């Protein structure tokens, strides 16, 4: 498949864009990465390819756009079916992986974000407690899904590894800025080891942003959001 046949519209800090890139890497699919310019108006191609949400990532395969990171990952798994499988084959395991991915997107990651946005010590402590509660659930889920193997997906990275692992860069930035260890030997030993394995995987390491660079970017985002004009 010609490289220009597969494009990813995205930006380097985005955890959701990382999901699409990791999935393509697992399948050894070459693609063109079209970087949206941060802080500038959205490109014509993005607005045309994702008119409903106007958000990255967008996978463009041939001339067909596919939007929403988890839907993109599933699409990649189905189209390049000769490569290693990303979703489990058992329907109940698939449903479980989807359940936790939805939990991460709807509940857990927003609680990570609220640590950074928290104003005041009480708000910060509440936000941290929420993240830690979530990690306890995820540590248990890891045990149930991995069944003693290195990843949620078993011997290799799978759907839930990708769905969760993409947040590790922001998690590390949050740990650095807040001075708290969210993943720890004491509370989440399995996830701590999984995180290292995930980040060093060949499909991941080149697309995982550097923690320092992401921390600088994070500070800029918070400054812009706090300095932004109040909504009308």
């Amino acid at each position, binding site marked *: 498949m010609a490289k220009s046949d597969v494009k990813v519209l995205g930006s380097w800090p985005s955890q959701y864009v990382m999901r699409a890139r990791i999935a393509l890497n697992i399948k050894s699919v070459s693609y063109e990465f079209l970087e949206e310019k941060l802080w500038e108006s959205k490109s014509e191609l993005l607005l045309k390819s994702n008119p*409903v949400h106007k958000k990255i990532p967008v996978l463009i*395969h041939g001339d*067909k756009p*596919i*939007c*929403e990171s988890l*839907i*993109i990952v*599933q*699409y990649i798994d*189905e*189209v390049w079916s000769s490569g290693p499988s990303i979703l489990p084959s058992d*329907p*109940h395991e*698939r*449903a479980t992986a*989807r*359940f936790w991915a*939805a*939990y991460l997107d709807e509940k857990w990651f927003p609680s990570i974000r609220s640590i950074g946005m928290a104003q005041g010590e009480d708000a910060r402590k509440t936000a941290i407690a929420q993240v830690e509660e979530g990690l306890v*659930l995820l540590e248990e889920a890891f045990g149930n899904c991995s069944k003693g193997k290195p990843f949620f997906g078993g011997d290799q990275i799978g759907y839930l590894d990708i769905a969760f692992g993409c947040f590790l860069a922001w998690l590390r930035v949050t740990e650095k800025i807040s001075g708290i260890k969210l993943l720890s030997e004491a509370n989440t030993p399995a996830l701590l080891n999984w995180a290292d394995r995930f980040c060093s995987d060949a499909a991941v390491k080149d697309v995982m942003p550097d923690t320092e660079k992401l921390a600088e970017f994070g500070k800029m985002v918070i400054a812009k959001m706090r300095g932004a004009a109040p909504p009308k």
Partner: protein
Amino acid sequence: MEGGVVLLDFWPSSFTMRVKIALAEKGIKYECKHEDLFNKSPLLLEMNPVHKKIPVLIHNGKPISESLIIVQYIDEVWNHKSPLLPSDPYQRSQALFWGDYLDKKMYSCGKRIWVGKEDQEEAKEELMKILKTMEGELGDKLYFGGDSIGYVDVALVPFTSWFYTFETCGNFSIEADCPKLIAWAKRCKESESVCKALPDPLEIYGFMLQLKKRLGLN
């Protein structure tokens, strides 16, 4: 429970209606257990400890939660008839996209309409925008799934049982701006699977009035 299918249900919920339609489309026999959301059963708390929400499908003793995840599960396990998702990966990604769109938008928008506070006008505009978008997506097709009910039809049609409630609370007409969508809803209700799953809109309205009272939202 071994080999059996159980649905933890709450009759006014658009989300449990989705599951009922999917089960009926596949001809699956199941036990329906009605939940009181103000007094959740030990079974619900055991089967969905993370969210404590309905619907939950219990199959061979194992729970599946989140309505569209359940619908996909049903489609994958009982793949002998009435496919809900397209077989082509691109078409499937589009169907999943619209299901996700509805999940992100419909419920919170509808709730702001029937709660009826200062954000009601904005919510009405947002609802019409969502429905017009869906009407555009339907185009000239009989169903979102093409010639037969599919995943997006299952995802959207339950909310139509709440239209009377939205219209009455918000004092507006959905049919006036989205006639094709209303025609599609009527077409869906000709199917037994949909007709049996969707309550009478007047009963939904009555339920909403009681709920508002109970939550002190009057």
